[in-house]
């Protein structure tokens, strides 16, 4: 059964429209102008309980706005959102106890106190008795590899330690739905990996539903069998990363290592030459012609090594975002 449902969800912001310079400033002061910006345009999807779904898209695509609508922080301009059987923007206590929203750039921990002080407040707010709160803190601290950091003022913690403590604070009421907005932003590779493995572990242990946005594709590939790709406010793709890769690049990458160097012109009949550096050649070949082209390459040329792979997904998505190739 779907725990998250978005139906033609949209959000339009009204923003001030001011020209630069003194004249623009005076004109804006006398007569304010506004324009509407559509941040999310009629996005529809459902997510089943226990799923881990990655939310991809460039800056300003509408990912965070969608998460804020689903968590109840902002009201949609149109469409319907339903999470855990509730209309999010009503922010009923029963709904708030079932969700959490972690924003990588925002913090809820009290800056000048150790995380444990904030955790005690959260335990009281969510109605956890002392024994339950202690048990959950111990369990999450172990999963997150947090120890004496919990008794050190938050301002003295490293970014990675702080993020882990934020996750602990956001999860101690054991929410069924996690909205995570860039939870690994700014963390080093090791800290990113630890947060990732924690989230996978948490999902396994508690069957929580996770909707995750990240600029680091590694987060998505490691955690999310399903991705939603949002671009310019609209949903471009809903499926696996592999399907996304096929859709973005209906071709495969063939790498050749030759016995003798050859000019690039020799490869034009096989596919699109992406790179040709003497003995090393990279060709983009359509999926339909792949078998035939590989057979021809092996028959026609002295091939020392041949490898077929998908073009890196980062490159494909990056190209999509840069070129606006969305139909």
């Amino acid at each position: 059964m779907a725990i998250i449902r978005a139906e033609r969800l949209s959000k339009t912001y009204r923003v001030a429209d001011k020209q630069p310079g003194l004249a623009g400033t005076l004109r804006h002061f006398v007569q304010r102008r506004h324009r509407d910006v559509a941040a999310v345009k009629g996005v529809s999807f459902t997510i089943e309980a226990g799923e881990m779904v990655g939310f991809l898209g460039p800056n300003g695509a509408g990912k965070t706005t969608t998460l804020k609508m689903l968590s109840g922080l902002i009201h949609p301009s149109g469409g319907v959102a339903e999470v855990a059987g509730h209309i999010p923007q009503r922010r009923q206590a029963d709904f708030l106890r079932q969700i959490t929203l972690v924003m990588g750039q925002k913090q809820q921990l009290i800056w000048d106190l150790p995380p444990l002080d904030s955790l005690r407040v959260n335990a009281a707010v969510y109605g956890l008795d002392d024994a339950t709160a202690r048990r959950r803190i111990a369990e999450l601290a172990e999963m997150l590899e947090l120890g004496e950091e919990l008794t050190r003022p938050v301002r003295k913690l490293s970014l990675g330690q702080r993020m882990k403590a934020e996750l602990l604070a956001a999860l101690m009421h054991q929410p069924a739905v996690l909205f995570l907005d860039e939870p690994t932003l700014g963390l080093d590779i090791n800290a990113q990996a630890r947060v990732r493995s924690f989230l996978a572990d948490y999902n396994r242990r508690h069957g929580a539903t996770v909707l995750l946005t990240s600029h680091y594709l590694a987060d998505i590939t490691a955690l999310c069998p399903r991705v939603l790709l949002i671009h310019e406010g609209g949903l471009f793709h809903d499926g696996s990363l592999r399907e996304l890769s096929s859709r973005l690049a209906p071709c495969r990458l063939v790498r050749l290592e030759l016995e003798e160097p050859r000019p690039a012109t020799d490869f034009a009949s096989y596919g699109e030459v992406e790179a040709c550096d003497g003995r090393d050649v990279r060709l983009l070949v359509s999926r339909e012609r792949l078998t035939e082209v590989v057979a021809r390459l092996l028959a026609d040329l002295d091939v020392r090594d041949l490898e077929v792979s998908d073009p890196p997904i980062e490159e494909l998505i990056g190209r999509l975002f840069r070129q606006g190739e969305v139909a």
Partner: protein
Amino acid sequence: MSAQGIRSLGRRLRHGWRVARALLSSQYALMLEYRAETALWALSGILPFIMLGIWSQLAIPPAGLGPGSGAGSGASGIGLDQLQLSRYFLGAFVARQFSVAWVVYAFEEDALQGRLSPYLLQPLQPLWRYVAAHLAEQVTRLPFVVLIAAVFFLLQPAALWIPSPGRIVATVLAIWLAFTINFLLQSCIAILCFWSERASALERLLLIPYLFLSGLVAPLEVFPPALRAAAHWTPFPYMVAFPAQLLAGQVVPIAASFAAMAAWIALLLPLTLLLWRAGVRRYSAMGA
């Protein structure tokens, strides 16, 4: 009320008590981190003592005596003798110390820094956090206020007095209500953050009427009767003058003043909640 209703009420009260205890203890820990700042805030509230010095000098001396000799000379030109004047301003100092509100600044900063968003996603009305912060700050302030009052009595031993227990209880209640009025008034302005990012600028509009009509700068007795009567239609005299007069042992309309304070709270509380609901709706519409 049914047994189930009583059990549910008991559960809610226990939950409320746990939340209050956790919020107060964490906020007290936070205020202790800022103890030097709290001490400076307490010290910066000595305006009533400065005004005491001025009013003592301006007190009309008996015929034949020059300015300044009014101190300790009995009746002053404002209907209060020097001792009453000293005790009034000490009372004003104490009332101000424990009724001060700064929610507009804290709230504005939280709204601008995005800290409000996580608060809105927890099953607790965010204003309770600010109430707890104020109460914790008052407890932190207490030793500094006692110290400043002790220095005052060392300098003016004649002004030392022990109010009756009834007056002490009434003063504590009046200060608590004064704080509630001040907090609600500031909350209404703070909530305007949802419409204008710099709501604290509006708070400054209240500063002048607060300073003069609250009795912080001058006892209300010095104002013309019409202005004094008009002042009592505002909440300001109840924030400082009334608790100060109570503590100083002056004759004041106690029941009428408490009734006026209750009326202001009855007006401001629903207004705050209405503004909050509308403000959060707007905040949510604008992008949080």
